[in-house]
């Protein structure tokens, strides 16, 4: 048994009867459970819930947190994810009792502050997007995509154009784009990239037509490149009767510099957890508001926050929207995430947001120019907030992008996004964000240079990395082929253990 590596699950800790609380004696008569809940719903055996002291629980979770990597621990250049530092003042404000203790069923007059915050956040996002109204309810970027596509569908339906059943998506797109389009019942038509990394306008011309419902585009795209022909692209789709969807995953590059609405887009989603400094934590909660052009406003999901201009302004949730696509989420989305984004936008202000984008772009270009000496740069153009290197030179020596990524972990740096976008072989997608000082960028350059040297001199060192993390190289293939999905699967005869 290795003392450093053993890390029991909560289920494996504790002992019967151990507890972290003592409740006072009941001051009402105890009711037998079977009088309160119909017998068919009652368990015959108690659920296997671990019994633990508070100390054990604290050590368990603090122990796990010390093994974790986050932007509060070290550099996190995970491309397309915008792992910027989230100012702690956001957390202070989101934990104010007046926000944190709200109940969704509270009467409207008691939640005016919260409604005002949502109303103003919507206005700020619309200004940044260059569009007219927004919904804050989508719970993540991909949820925003689905909502946006439902709006596209509702819009064409209202014009009697249900035959428009194709969504055009570039080959460099995030995988969520075609997934959302397919989920919404659309056929996905792929448009190739040109040699400069933008959408091939020549091919787009061939693909747009009377079947086109819309185009989904990320700009800057997943190569970190701003599409130089964006106006020609949006004009072409609009002329064919299609709508334009802007995937805001890379919006951190353009705040206060240019607006998707001005580029010709009709729908924009923002990932509040990327661009507006809310936590990416553990898969949620996220928030992916979408802003839309005026002709799409009637279709926005219910409710929307409206302002009543009486003697004194007041805010209310408007459910009376006959053309709306309906509700897409319980209540009003993830409200406390909105509070954090609002706090960020208001503390930064327009100048601060513009500066954030400028610094993000400057940092990425600085890294790109320095790192291209050691790694192949497939699209040698000025980049925006991120760029994509290829480990193809290293691959020729037997070292893959994933080995470079694993080795970075040894240096306390989170791996970049690898093997994406799919159009770059052995891709390493690097996004430093605006919040890292130059000293950190310089250290990263030195480490990447050292790794490139190792690839030449001691490739085994990379192929077996990481060496200094809590666990070494994991067998990801076996984990995917034969996942162990259940802790309790160890019971004899239980065939669900390996996920079959």
């Amino acid at each position: 048994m290795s003392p450093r590596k053993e890390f029991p699950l909560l289920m494996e800790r504790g002992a019967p009867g151990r507890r972290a609380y003592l409740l006072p004696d009941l001051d009402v008569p105890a009711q037998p459970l079977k009088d309160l809940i119909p017998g068919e719903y009652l368990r015959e055996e108690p659920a296997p819930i671990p019994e633990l002291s508070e100390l054990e629980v604290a050590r368990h979770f603090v122990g796990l947190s010390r093994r974790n990597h986050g932007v509060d621990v070290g550099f996190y250049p995970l491309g397309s994810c915008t792992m910027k530092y989230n100012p702690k003042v956001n957390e202070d404000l989101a934990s104010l009792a007046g926000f944190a203790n709200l109940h969704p069923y509270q009467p409207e007059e008691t939640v005016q502050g919260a409604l005002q915050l949502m109303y103003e956040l919507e206005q700020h996002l619309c200004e940044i997007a260059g569009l007219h109204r927004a919904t804050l309810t989508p719970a993540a970027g991909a949820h925003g995509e689905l909502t946006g596509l439902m709006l596209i569908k509702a819009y064409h339906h209202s014009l009697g154009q249900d035959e428009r059943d194709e969504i055009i998506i570039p080959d460099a797109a995030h995988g969520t784009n075609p997934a959302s389009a397919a989920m919404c019942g659309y056929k996905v038509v792929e448009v190739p990239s040109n040699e400069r990394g933008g959408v091939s306008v020549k091919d787009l011309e061939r693909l747009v037509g009377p079947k086109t419902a819309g185009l989904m585009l990320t700009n800057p795209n997943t190569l970190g490149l701003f599409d130089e022909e964006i106006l020609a692209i949006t004009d072409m789709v609009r002329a064919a009767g299609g709508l334009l969807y802007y995937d805001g995953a890379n919006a951190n590059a353009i705040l206060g510099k240019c607006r998707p609405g001005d580029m010709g887009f009709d729908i924009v989603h923002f990932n509040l957890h990327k661009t507006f400094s809310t936590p990416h934590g553990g898969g949620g909660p996220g928030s992916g508001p979408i802003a839309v052009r005026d002709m799409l406003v009637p279709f926005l999901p219910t409710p929307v926050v409206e302002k009543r201009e009486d003697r004194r302004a007041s805010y209310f949730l408007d459910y009376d929207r006959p053309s709306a696509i309906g509700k897409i989420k319980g209540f009003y989305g993830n409200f406390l995430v909105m509070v954090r984004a609002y706090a960020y936008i208001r503390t930064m202000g327009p100048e601060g947001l513009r500066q954030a984008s400028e610094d993000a772009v400057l940092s990425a270009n600085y890294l790109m120019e320095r790192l291209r000496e050691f790694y192949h740069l497939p699209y040698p153009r000025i980049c925006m907030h991120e760029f994509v290197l290829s480990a193809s030179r290293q691959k020729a020596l037997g070292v893959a992008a994933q080995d470079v990524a694993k080795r970075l972990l040894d240096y306390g740096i989170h791996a970049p996004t690898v093997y994406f976008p799919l159009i770059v072989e052995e891709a390493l997608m690097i996004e430093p964000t605006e919040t890292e000082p130059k000293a950190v960028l310089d250290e990263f350059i030195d480490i990447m240079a050292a790794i490139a040297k190792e690839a030449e001199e001691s490739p085994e060192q990379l192929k077996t990395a990481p060496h200094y993390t809590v666990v070494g190289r994991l067998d990801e293939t076996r984990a995917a082929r034969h996942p162990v999905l259940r802790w309790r699967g160890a019971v004899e005869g239980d065939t669900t253990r390996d996920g079959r």
Partner: protein
Amino acid sequence: MKIPADLRYAESHEWVRVEDDGVVVGVTDFAQDEMGDIVFAELPTIGAEYEKGEGMAVIESVKAVSDIYAPIGGKVVAINESLNDSPELVNDDCYGEGWLVKLAPSNSEELNTLLSAAEYGTQLESEA
């Protein structure tokens, strides 16, 4: 890179072997190497019919998800059930145990549109 001489090939990197009761389809050595470690193969249902070039299976590797296209039109008469438990067979033995689907061709003439081993080899060289 193995390219057995007795098989026919599609430009989209599937191979075809003609047998008495149908044609067996799999992916080439080049394709399995490009995809990397394969973790899941989603095969069609028996009886399903596909036209030449239509997506009939999906292979998921640690790197990406790839469509597998019908090299010729036909009806699915058998699928390689062993891939459910052992998708790695596609990596280990792509021309043998790692086959994917057996088709009853709808038009045997289409076999003539496929590439020979030499022609497929030339295609790979020009792509490299």
